[in-house]
């Protein structure tokens, strides 16, 4: 390697569910380089055993999120120049999720909570019925549209201090999904959604700190969705006692 190539000091967390530590690598800096490029370079050139997860590389699949210098980020769309601290980079597995190995986390708790939050479609029609026409300008549809670009990357879940302190908490992404379905005219079980988010791990545990909205790579606002759920559940409680 030429002496003129600038080398970055990259600390990568290595280990598994039982524990681990940071391992340092020297990685050549390039003009246009993402964090995922850096991690891939290490895996391809220095340690083939390095484990990490990615798929689309263009910010659509939500697979490659990691902690970069202590902040949850989508690594395929994060340029090194934006986050380089002097000459150092620190890359770790996502916070608030169990580690499988190195930079790959077990996403099961995250997706299990989508199901717990009734983040599934409850059909109102059969295949024999006519397709329901949706008014794109209706206030409910406009509200639902604010959350549909979620790519399930779990960055908001990793950023959330309430998740860190309360393992039962459903988390911002799952609750935002519930709010989207609650506002969807095609969903037939709105009370079921409110019941699902009103339990001991539900939306009422959110402290509105807003880390989810700050770190969401798609500029979504799960905190606002959770506030909507709090309003809807409070109205339901006053009207129906639940």
């Amino acid at each position, binding site marked *: 390697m030429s002496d003129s190539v600038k080398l970055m000091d990259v600390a990568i967390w290595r280990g598994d569910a039982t524990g681990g530590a940071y391992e340092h690598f020297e990685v050549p800096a390039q003009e246009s380089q993402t964090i995922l490029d850096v991690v891939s370079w290490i895996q391809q050139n220095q340690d083939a055993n390095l484990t990490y997860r990615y798929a689309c590389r263009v910010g659509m699949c939500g697979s490659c999120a990691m902690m970069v210098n202590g902040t949850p980020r989508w690594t395929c769309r994060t340029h090194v120049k934006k986050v380089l601290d002097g000459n150092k980079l620190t890359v770790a597995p996502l916070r608030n999720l169990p580690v499988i190995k190195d930079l790959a986390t077990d996403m099961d708790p995250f997706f299990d909570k989508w199901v717990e939050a009734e983040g599934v479609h409850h059909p109102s029609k059969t295949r024999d019925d006519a397709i329901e026409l949706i008014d794109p300008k209706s206030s409910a549809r406009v509200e639902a549209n604010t959350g549909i670009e979620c790519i399930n990357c779990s960055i908001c879940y990793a950023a959330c201090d309430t998740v860190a*302190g309360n393992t039962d*908490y459903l988390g911002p992404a799952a609750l935002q999904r519930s709010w989207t379905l609650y506002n969807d005219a095609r969903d037939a079980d709105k009370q079921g959604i409110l019941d699902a988010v*009103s*339990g*001991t791990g539900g939306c*009422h545990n959110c402290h509105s700190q807003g880390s989810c909205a700050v770190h969401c790579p798609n500029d979504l606002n799960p905190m606002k969705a959770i506030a909507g759920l709090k309003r809807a*559940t*409070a109205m339901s*409680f006053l009207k129906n006692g*639940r």
Partner: protein
Amino acid sequence: MLDIRLYMLQRLSALFMGPFVLIHIAVMIYAIQGGLSTGEILGRTQGSVTWFLFYAMFVIAVSVHSAIGLRVIVHEFLGLKGFALSTLTWTICVVLLFMGGRAVTAVTML
């Protein structure tokens, strides 16, 4: 840890506490303007059903609100959960009710 029932209890108790706090502070400021002594204040509050009801409701709201708030903090910072957490919540509520109740009866009962 915080379901809809506890959430509503905490919000509704806060709804009551807000005006109670303002009235309490406003009356205190008003009452001491002329240099009232403790004895003169007690002379006005003891035997007053209005002040008994006011401070009794105040104490109930504070006890409920504080117990639920501390429940959240204890769970998130110390990891206490389940039966132990519920026991602590109820204990805080009962202790505050008892202490507040003593103060209210001392100030408003003849």
